[in-house]
């Protein structure tokens, strides 16, 4: 029973897959072989599937561990765990947020809050990895992030722009995991800096560039002809794609100066706000997964100085993003996710800080088919324990995948022949959908 596929059968599969990939010139097929005779570990994967309610994802990652009590799971004012922070009412009946988020409070009718997230990982790297992949960090495998899964399983998108973009300075990201490097997100460190190396050197005219490339092709012709190999050919193709990208009208997506000052101010003149604006511009042009990182939320010290500062940018950026997407009619097809690696301790430490707390924390989902103005799950009066709607990270991610119409029970093999699913055994929270 522990040998679902015989060795020779696997070799045959591999052979067919590799043959196919050599014809199509893509490294994608080998990973999409589905095994119906899947091994025991996948019996728990969800069979649920729906027609996609979301086409795109804007994934906001609060790096360092966002305090749940000071943001989306505030308790009664005066409760010792709240320190000086008070809850405020929002545009959604029965939904409260902390006073650090006054603008967002007016948009909560678009948003579903999940204050009942739990994680098994209490360290940053491990927590971040699990939130991005649904799997625990291991030394022998890299699991793909959701953007990579989406790119592999559905593709689509713009054609000239990469399908998967990461905006921010956070250095941790699982990227394409075990999928080919082509599914790695394009990393944009500074949203106002644009994409590197997409314009000619100063003083190099288009005409001269063309001449140089023509000469280059001439000098390369015999080498290309003599070496009919895939990787050689891939270089020729890659130049075509690169030049196509340099000329792409869509590169303007990265030029935030195309937006009015009012719009840019509205998102907030800080890396997160401008990152949200860039994400919107990308999604508008067909990019399917844009992640914006924000933080560092690791407030072991001076929580009530650092957290409100981070909340200011979050409040302005996210509330504007919701309004803007809504006004453009894009919110229905765009799922906004807010995630973080863990929450922070209800007990305030001697440094007026909060420490890591994976036992209960908050995430948000909005747009893309999610019914706004609701709360799924609940923590106790001090935000210590989840008492209702316990949501593990794979469940949260399965909800995202479900919205995108990704098959949660598809067994995919890594190049090392290990089988994986999109969200491990996560079960989507279907009641969140409107």
């Amino acid at each position, binding site marked *: 029973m*522990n*040998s679902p*596929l*015989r*060795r020779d059968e696997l070799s045959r599969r591999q052979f067919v897959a*590799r043959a196919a990939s*050599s014809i199509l010139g893509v490294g994608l097929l080998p990973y999409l072989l589905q095994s119906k005779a899947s*091994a*025991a*570990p996948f019996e728990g994967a969800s069979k649920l599937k729906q027609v996609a309610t979301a086409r795109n994802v804007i994934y906001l990652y609060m790096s360092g561990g966002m305090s749940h009590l000071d943001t989306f799971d505030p308790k009664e004012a005066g409760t010792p765990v709240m320190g*000086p922070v008070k809850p405020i009412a929002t545009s959604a009946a029965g939904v409260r947020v902390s006073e650090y988020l006054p603008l967002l409070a007016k948009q909560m009718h678009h948003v579903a809050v999940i204050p009942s997230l739990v994680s098994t990982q209490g360290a940053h*790297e491990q927590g971040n990895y699990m939130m991005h992949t649904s799997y625990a960090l*291991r*030394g*022998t*495998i*890299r699991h793909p992030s959701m953007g990579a899964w989406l790119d592999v399983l559905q593709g689509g998108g713009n054609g000239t722009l990469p399908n998967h973009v990461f905006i921010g300075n956070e*250095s941790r990201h699982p*990227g394409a995991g075990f999928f*080919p*490097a*082509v599914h790695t997100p394009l990393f944009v460190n500074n949203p106002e800096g644009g994409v*590197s*190396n*997409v314009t000619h050197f100063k003083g190099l005219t288009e005409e*001269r560039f063309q*001449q*140089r*490339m*023509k*000469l*280059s092709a*001439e*000098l*390369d012709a015999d*080498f290309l002809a003599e*070496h*009919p*190999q895939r*990787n*050689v050919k*891939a*270089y*020729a193709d*890659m130049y075509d*794609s*690169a030049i196509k990208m*340099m000329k792409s009208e869509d590169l303007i997506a990265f030029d935030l100066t195309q937006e009015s000052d009012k719009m840019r101010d509205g998102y907030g003149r800080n890396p997160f706000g401008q990152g949200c604006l860039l994400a919107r511009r990308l999604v508008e042009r067909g990019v399917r997964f844009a992640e914006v990182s924000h933080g560092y939320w690791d407030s072991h*010290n*001076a929580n*009530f*100085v*650092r957290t*409100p*500062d981070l909340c200011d940018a979050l409040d302005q950026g996210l509330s504007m993003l919701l309004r803007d997407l809504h006004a453009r009619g894009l919110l229905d097809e765009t799922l906004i996710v807010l995630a973080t690696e863990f929450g922070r301790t209800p007990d305030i*430490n*001697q*440094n*007026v800080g909060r420490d890591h707390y994976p036992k209960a924390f908050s995430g948000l989902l909005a747009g893309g088919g999610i019914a706004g103005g609701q709360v799924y799950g609940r923590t106790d009066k001090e935000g210590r324990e989840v008492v209702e709607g316990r949501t593990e990270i794979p469940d949260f991610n399965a909800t995202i995948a479900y919205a995108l119409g990704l098959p949660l029970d598809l067994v995919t093999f890594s190049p090392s*022949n290990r089988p994986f699913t999109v969200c491990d055994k996560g079960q989507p929270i279907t009641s969140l959908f409107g």
Partner: protein
Amino acid sequence: MKHHPLKLVLLLCLCTGLLHAASSKTDPLAPARELDALLAQDWANNKVEPNPPATDEVFVRRVYLDVVGRIPTVREAEEFLGAQSANKRAELIDRLLASDGYAQHFFNYWADVLRLQSFGAIGAVPGAAYTEFIKESLRTNKPYDQFVRELIASKGRPWENPAIGYYMRDNRMPLDNFANTARIFLGTRIECAQCHNHPFDKWTQMQFYQMTAFTYANEPRAYTNPAISGMQALNQQMRVDLGRRFPAKETAASPELAAQHAAELEHLKFVSQSVNDVQVLSMGGVGVVYDDKRKLELPHDYQYPDAAPKTEVQARTMMGGPAEPRPGESSTEAYARWMTSPENPRFTTVIANRLWKMAFGLALIEPLDEMSEVNTPSNPELMRRLETLVRESGYDMKACLRVIFNTRAYQAAATKQEVPVGATYHFTGPVLRRMSAEQMWDSFVTLINAAPLVPSKTVADNLHARITKAAKIIDAIDLLTPEEAFQGAKVAAESYRAAAQAANEARFKIEEAKARKDTQAVETLVKQTSEVQAGGRRALGRSVFLPAVERLAEIKEGRPAPPSPFSDAPVHVTEADLMALKDADPTMVAQRVPVKGYDKKELTPEQEQAEAAREEQALLETADYFKIPAANRKSFIAICRNQRIYWARAADMIQPAFRGTYLRIFGQSDRELIENSSRDASVPQALTLMNSDLLLAVMSRDSQLMLAINRQADSEAKLEAAYLALLSRKPTERERTAWHNAQADGLDSMEDLVYALVNTTRFLFIE
């Protein structure tokens, strides 16, 4: 193979000893011819034609890339192509193997295999030490079996035994560590069996655990010493005393007592934090401890009938003979000996395949780390011969490579057709390969640096400083009495308190500023608060680490220790005091206090002068070659020195390079997984080669490439220089014509040609 084990060992010792001693002098051509004969037999049997011999031009570029990891300079190419010696290929191979470039190139390879990170999860100090360890092992051509034994049997502190990086890299993941060991050194994929019996191979989960049990006692763990554990005990005592002085009932009854208790409790918290930080910051010396009390158990969900879940696992080898510890040997040491024994069924095969693949681009078993009963060598006789070569050389990597590089097969033209996955390749020549990321980078560095490349010390010195600092700190703390360490921590605790108070006050100031809509003030206050917050920790530099290191320095100089600066005198700390503390890392004080026996030996002024004179001489010689006018020499030398700093080789940089850097764009591994580097084409690569600053540096007038071109007067010679620099050959007639036509069409500068050539596919490939 039913030899008496002892006899076999004796025999092997004899052979390896003899051959090892002789290996550097023997003619590498004889064993190379043996390999050639085996290949010829295989070609005849399979009716394949060998590739024609490679030209000297193809050979020189290839062998530079394969041995020292970069293309040759114009001078190096000219020198080889112009040499008349009949043995010039063998001589070049020897010269390159003996150069530092060998260590650089093979370091990049092993860094990819071993997932080397010089910081990050491995820890900054172990990462630094491990990086240098790998490089040094290659520099000294340490026998491969010894290198692996040192890794597997490593324990101790990073500065005593830098090989512990092997365990630190998989800190808290001993099961993964074993899966990686099996793959890297035994060519066996067994990670599936970590959670269940291997579905496609014979390995069981039980075997996985039995093998892990050998090294399970090797645990990455924070070192401690009497000062630290004593200080922690005093802290604990303080907690106990507090509880005793304020009995729960009485304290609750009296508001006065309660208030006093709360105040003292708060003080205790700051002291505890300070004590904790002293411990954490001193253990840059995290190391690997061998603790045979640590026993491995089966997982709670173990599902097979041969044992119950959570039973203790006894170490047992999964292949070959047993690994019984000899008297005085730990289980890990016995295991390391078993692993690297010439009798191990897979150990030698794997390294023989690695070396072969480095030269030919493919191994005899592919993938070489996925050996199994069905994945066997394409040419078993050749495989056996290579294994014998490795064993008989005493695992001398350079000696083996020397033989392989001297085969006619290696020195043949590359195979033009792609070898399909799964097809048997008969090694009629090397396969065509794209340069690795590091080969690309180092080739660009070669094109840029006008003067010959020398190892860059910038990062190495930095890594060394990290290690020295950690060693000083732990040894210095060791000199304190527990009382002194505790007093120091208590003094710093006042800074922690002040920082917490500042954070509290800042909140109100920020709220006020917000009410005034003074965003500037808010920003300043937030920034200031985060500065002040670090003040608590920073204070440890002054109150604990500095006096400890000063004491260490005095003692190492043979002077009596200075009187203890520690006291119980109360201190008062203000916010201004906190702002004045500069070191973000309080252990930095150790870097500023020289301690005999720890810091790298400084050169004497005479030595320094001699060193500088030598360097200047070499640079002047370069200036001569490039015909730099006398008036420009000074600035030329300055430029060369700058180039060496800014354009250092891949192996001399932080490992791995940061995301988004050229090396990573070219496909350097992120070092998260074994051999995770990529040689695939990507759009950012094309964009880099067309539009980046890297290309501007290559085309700048001070680059080796442009100097070599401009050293020539007439245009044909310039064209030839460009081809020599980039492709180690002269242009063909067709290429000359293409360039002449392009010139007629308006491309009038050599930069045009360079740009076009760098952007050809052939530049990136190793023919």
